[in-house]
């Protein structure tokens, strides 16, 4: 029965929190059990213990055991929330982004340079990584026990989680949200390698074009360039759109982030840019998650 390795920065802080809360609650539990056994033995029926006027209530004792646990609980809550925020708040932005798409009963990962793998994920040691999750069918959950991280992939939007592998080796990858027949078989391996070995591995393997170039190819094939690139059709110019503040026709202003780009592709009539007609067709169902993230990466890098 091997003990669970702590292979990421979050793992260490989660372990510390877990063992301290375990010790605390364990002591409280043992104290209650000891009291119950002690009272059970001391005051068992027929024992000669002194039973004069058993106290029906003790104000200060009862208030004490309300506010003491409350203080302890608030402490545990704050500690847990701080560590939790580390998973999501954007840390130093040198995090390497890996797109992972959950599909019924397999994980498809794709690195920024287009290197693809199924049910496998190679990560460099010591480099913060952000996993961006999406799913093509039901809800899956990307769970690596050794890193103590878990994040559901929800259909219709992106979710992400951020951590830094700190130990080389192979660790289990599981799907933690029930997703059908082979939910139990939907998993694989996460391999943490030395940065040099990882860079070399990234270059080898099936050489498909980088994500951005795939995005550009889609941008032409699906006819986006027909309207959005110097054409007669009155459509917003998309060069450098990522990060810009966009004024919408109904007066709202939105920052053009990934969610906005994604929604504009799938549900164009929802956030129409001011001064334009809602004539753009929806691409709902024509693009799978992998192609969608490729297109969005292209729009991001087409500064």
């Amino acid at each position, binding site marked *: 029965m091997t003990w669970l390795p702590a292979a990421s920065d979050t793992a260490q802080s989660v372990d510390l929190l877990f063992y301290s809360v375990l010790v605390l609650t364990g002591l409280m539990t043992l104290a209650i059990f000891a009291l119950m056994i002690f009272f059970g033995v001391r005051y068992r029926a027929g024992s000669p213990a002194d039973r004069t006027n058993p106290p029906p209530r003790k104000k200060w004792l009862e208030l004490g055991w309300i506010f003491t646990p409350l203080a302890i609980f608030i402490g545990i809550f704050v500690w847990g929330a701080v560590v939790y925020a580390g998973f*999501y*708040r*954007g840390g130093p*932005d040198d*995090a390497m*982004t890996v797109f992972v798409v959950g599909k019924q009963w397999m994980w498809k990962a794709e690195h920024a340079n287009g290197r693809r793998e199924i049910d496998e994920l190679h990560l460099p040691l010591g480099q913060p990584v*952000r996993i*961006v999750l999406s799913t093509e069918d039901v809800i899956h959950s990307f769970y690596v026990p050794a890193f103590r991280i878990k994040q559901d992939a929800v259909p219709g939007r*992106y*979710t*992400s989680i951020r951590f830094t592998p700190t130990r080389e080796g192979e660790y289990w990858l599981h799907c933690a949200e029930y997703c059908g027949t082979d939910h139990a078989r939907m998993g694989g391996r996460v391999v943490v390698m030395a940065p040099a070995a990882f860079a070399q591995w990234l270059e080898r393997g099936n050489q498909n074009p980088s994500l951005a170039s795939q995005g550009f190819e889609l941008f032409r094939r699906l006819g986006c360039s027909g309207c959005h690139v110097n054409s007669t059709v009155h459509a917003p110019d998309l060069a450098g759109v990522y*990060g810009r503040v966009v004024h919408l026709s109904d*007066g709202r202003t939105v920052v053009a*982030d*990934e*969610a906005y780009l994604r929604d504009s592709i799938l549900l164009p009539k929802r956030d129409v840019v001011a001064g334009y007609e809602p004539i753009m067709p929806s691409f709902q169902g024509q693009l799978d998650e992998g192609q969608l993230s490729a297109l969005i990466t292209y729009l*991001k890098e087409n500064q």
Partner: protein
Amino acid sequence: MTYVLTWVGLMILLALTCASSYFPMGNWNSVVNIGISCAKGLLIAVFFMHLRHAGALLRIVAIAGLLWLGILFGLSWSDFGTRTLSPAPWVAR
């Protein structure tokens, strides 16, 4: 007869809400609509449903349902309302 008066009040409020939707007031339209609907609901509850001289227990029960709906809407707003605050998944720059 208080009932007939209540009915007249309801009719006026109906006309008001219908008319108000023809003035472009942006978000205020739905605020006015909800306000008038609450007013109508209150009128019906107090006069027609005899909450006026009903005991405190019945009044609490009447409010409990709406209060619990408020919990559902309020606390889930803490999720839907703040989804845009936390940075988008890819925020890099």
